[in-house]
Structures are given as structure tokens and as C-alpha cells.
């Protein structure tokens, strides 16, 4: 099976709005894909459906060939936009928690990354700054050897040095068997590490292409094209 995610006419309606409108999409394995769109375009709705946090109104979605459920959650490593860490735990306890629930979690990798970012595993999450918490969360997510990584705004709240480290982590964790879906608005920073991009607007996909196709055809960066497509 060559696709990590497949959607067929996927639709999600909320009272008074259509968040996703008949979206059909395939994310192949071994690729890093950027999911780009303005606020409220449906990015997070799509990501939540992939992770089984929302049930679609109509259409179908397959993650690793299966409908979202316990089996797909074993295979998907998800970084949400917000901090989901239990405040009262220490980083050590959080690592044990992940190790207990995800059989693909690599503790040695997690401790190695913590050390490189100068985070003390004994620290409690309560005492950490927002940026540090985000780093811890990303470390936990990237320390899994998952089949699909879904990162919602992974570099939003961290300083430029940590941003470089995170992008480096993403590249060095790349595997031909795994796919990665990254939603972000900081396109310039991630553009170079992407295979392709999907532009989404008001619940519909408006463009799906590789980064180099865009650069070849339009003679401009994805960031510049994004600004043009979504000009206010």
C-alpha cells in the first residue's frame, strides 16, 4: 500500500458551516507534505479527522489503509497545535507514559534529543516556559518510529535556533516507509524540507503540487505563490 492517507469526497459540516467540502487527496509514503492555508481553511479539521478526533459527515478517509480507530492510532504520531501535556508530570514520567502506550516509542532517542536541547528530564512541565513545553511535546512525537507523522504548526512558538533544530530533526528522522503531514503558516522556513504542498481554502483543495514543480512553473517560491493565491 503506497499511500499513508487517502480521502475520497471527505466532507465535514458543523452547524452553520462546511469545514471540509468533498476533499479528495492522497499522501504517499516516504513524502513530507505541507498542508497550507489561511486560518479557518479546514487544515485542523482535516488533521483531526486523520487522528480520529472528529467523525466525517460524509465521504471516506483511510489512514494506512484503515478507517481511523485504535489500529491507526498505533501508527500515527500526532503533534497538535496546543499543549496537551499533563501539568503535574515530569518529563521522565511523560516519557514513561509514551513508552507504556506506544510500542514504537524509542526512549533512548527521546533522552538524546532532550540532552541536545538542554532540557532536564527531571523538570516538571508546570515549571516550564511555553516554548520549552512545545519542544518537549515535539520530542515525544518525533521519538516514535511511526508510519505517519502529523504535525500541526510544529515551529510556531519556538525561537529560530530551536526551529533549525526541529527542521533538522524532521530531516534526520525521515524514513522511506513513513509519511509526514505538516501544517504551517511559516512556509519559507519549511519549504526546503517539503516534497510537496497542498493548498486548502474554505474547505476545498485549491492546489496540490511538488515544491520544485511550483518553482519550475511559476518561477517563484511556494511562499510567494501562497501570498498570491491567498491575497487579502
Amino acid at each position: 500500500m503506497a499511500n499513508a492517507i487517502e480521502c475520497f469526497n471527505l466532507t465535514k459540516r458543523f452547524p452553520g458551516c462546511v469545514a471540509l467540502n468533498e476533499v479528495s487527496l492522497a499522501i504517499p509514503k516516504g513524502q513530507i507534505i505541507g498542508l497550507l492555508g489561511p486560518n479557518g481553511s479546514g487544515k485542523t479539521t482535516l488533521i483531526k479527522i486523520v487522528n480520529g478526533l472528529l467523525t466525517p459527515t460524509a465521504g471516506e478517509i483511510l489512514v494506512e489503509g484503515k478507517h481511523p480507530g485504535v489500529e491507526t492510532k498505533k501508527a500515527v504520531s500526532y503533534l497538535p497545535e496546543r499543549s496537551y501535556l499533563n501539568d503535574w508530570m515530569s518529563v521522565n514520567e511523560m516519557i514513561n507514559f509514551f513508552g507504556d502506550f506506544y510500542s514504537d516509542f524509542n526512549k533512548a532517542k527521546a533522552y538524546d534529543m532532550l540532552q541536545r536541547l538542554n532540557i532536564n528530564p527531571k523538570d516538571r512541565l508546570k515549571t516550564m516556559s511555553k516554548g520549552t513545553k512545545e519542544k518537549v511535546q515535539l520530542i515525544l512525537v518525533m521519538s516514535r518510529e511511526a508510519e505517519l507523522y502529523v504535525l500541526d504548526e510544529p515551529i510556531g512558538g519556538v525561537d529560530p535556533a530551536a526551529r533549525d533544530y526541529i527542521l533538522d530533526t524532521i530531516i534526520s528522522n525521515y524514513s522511506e516507509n513513513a509519511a509526514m503531514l505538516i501544517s504551517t503558516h511559516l512556509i519559507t522556513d519549511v519549504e526546503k524540507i517539503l516534497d510537496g504542498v497542498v493548498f486548502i481554502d474554505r474547505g476545498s483543495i485549491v492546489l496540490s503540487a511538488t515544491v520544485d514543480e511550483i518553482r519550475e512553473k511559476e518561477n517563484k517560491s511556494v511562499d510567494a505563490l501562497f501570498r498570491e493565491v491567498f491575497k487579502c
Partner: protein
Amino acid sequence: MLGRLMKYEIKATGRIFLPLYGLILAFAGLNRLFMYFNLQKKSDFLPNFVSGISMLVYILLVAAAFVITLVVTVQRFRKNLLGDEGYLSFTLPVAVHSHIDSKMIVSLMWSVLSTVVALLSVAILAIGSGLYREIASGWDSVRDFFSQYGASGWGCVVSIVVLLLAAQLSGILSLYVSVVVGNLSGRHKRLAGFGTFLGIGVIAQVVFFSFANTSGVFQSYHDVPLDSVAQMRALSTDCLILAVFCAAFGVAFYFLTDWMLSRKLNLE
């Protein structure tokens, strides 16, 4: 996976309950000491208001244990599943019902433990007060009770325990279903949740009383002589009918909660 969920559930809630239990038992011991000094006519050793305050603190702690059991049941469910932590909880590779199971079982465990600790603290207060002698003599009457009623006596005790557990579980589940309904109703989540809880209470009462009045099951006492094996049997039967009634509501709450968390979940 249920075991692992329960492990973390106990860790998360134990850090509130265990210190509280420690405090309750410590204050029970302290009060016992004060009583001892006062009995020794050494009341000038400690001013009376100190022992008074200590007793008040103890009583408040015991009351708090039961209030906190309730609050933690609601808060833990709301925060861990429907707050930001829900993003992690619901992406763990476990079935939705396992979350409900683990929280329900651990919450029941704390309710039982709170009762046990409260009784234990009373026992500490009663050291040397003659209560133990009375219990010892009371034990004889308990033995008399069982020798008089035999199996029906035991049946009665078991039915009462079953009823208490069923009532507690369906109580916990009614809180869960209220929290979930409240959370789905857009704005005024807390108000909607509270309204649901009251609504459930009213419905349960109406159903119960109309059932009791029309079926006449709970009238059995009138027909049998007091202090008889027959009455014990009637009491057991009534307890079990009530337990089934609670369980039926509990099962309905359970599946409603599971269905809403699986199909209607919409984390902010």
C-alpha cells in the same frame, strides 16, 4: 491497556487523595490525644479552643474527602478527555470505552476508600472509649442475627452491598454523561451540564416512582410479619430490584457517553 490507563488514573488522582487521607488519619490521632489529655483533667495543658479547632478541622477534612471525590470525578473526566489533554487521551491507541472504564473504576475505588478511611478515623478517635468493647458485644448480636436468618441474612447483606455499588456506579456515569452533554452544547457548557444532571435526576425519579406505584414490588413488607426470614427475603429482593434499576440507568448512561465521545467529539 485498561490496566495502564488505570495506573495513570490512580497516579493522577492519588496525589490528591493520599495526602488528604493522611491528614484525616493524622487529625483523628491528634484529636484522640487531646481527648486523652482533657480526660486526665489536664485541660490547662492545652487551651480548649485548640482542641476545638482541631476537631473542627478533622470534621471538615472528612466532609472534604467526600466532596473532593465528587469534584475529582467530574474534573478529571472533563480535563483529561474534553480539555486540551483530550488531544493526547483520544490519540492513544485505546478504545474510547477503556477511558470510561478506567475512570469509572478508579472513581469507585476512591469512593470506597474515602468511606473506609472515614470509618478508620472514627475507630482511631474511639480508641479506649469503650466502643471496642461494645463492638465486641455487638459482634455476638451479629452472630445471633446470622444464626437466626441464615442464608437469607447473608443474602440481605450481599444485596445491600450490590445496591450500594450499583447506585455509586450509575451516579458516577450520570456525572459523565452530564459533562459530555454539557460539553457538546456549545456555549454555557457548565450550565448545560448541570441542567442535564438535574434533568437526569428528575427523569430517574419519575420512572422509578411510576414503576414502584404500578408494579407494587416495594409493598411486600405489608404482607409479611416483622422480624421474619420472609421479611429479610423481601428486603433482599427490593434491594436487588433497586440495584437492577440503577444498573439499567447506568448502562444507558455508559453507552450514551461512549457513543457521544466516539461519534460527536469536538475538542476545542
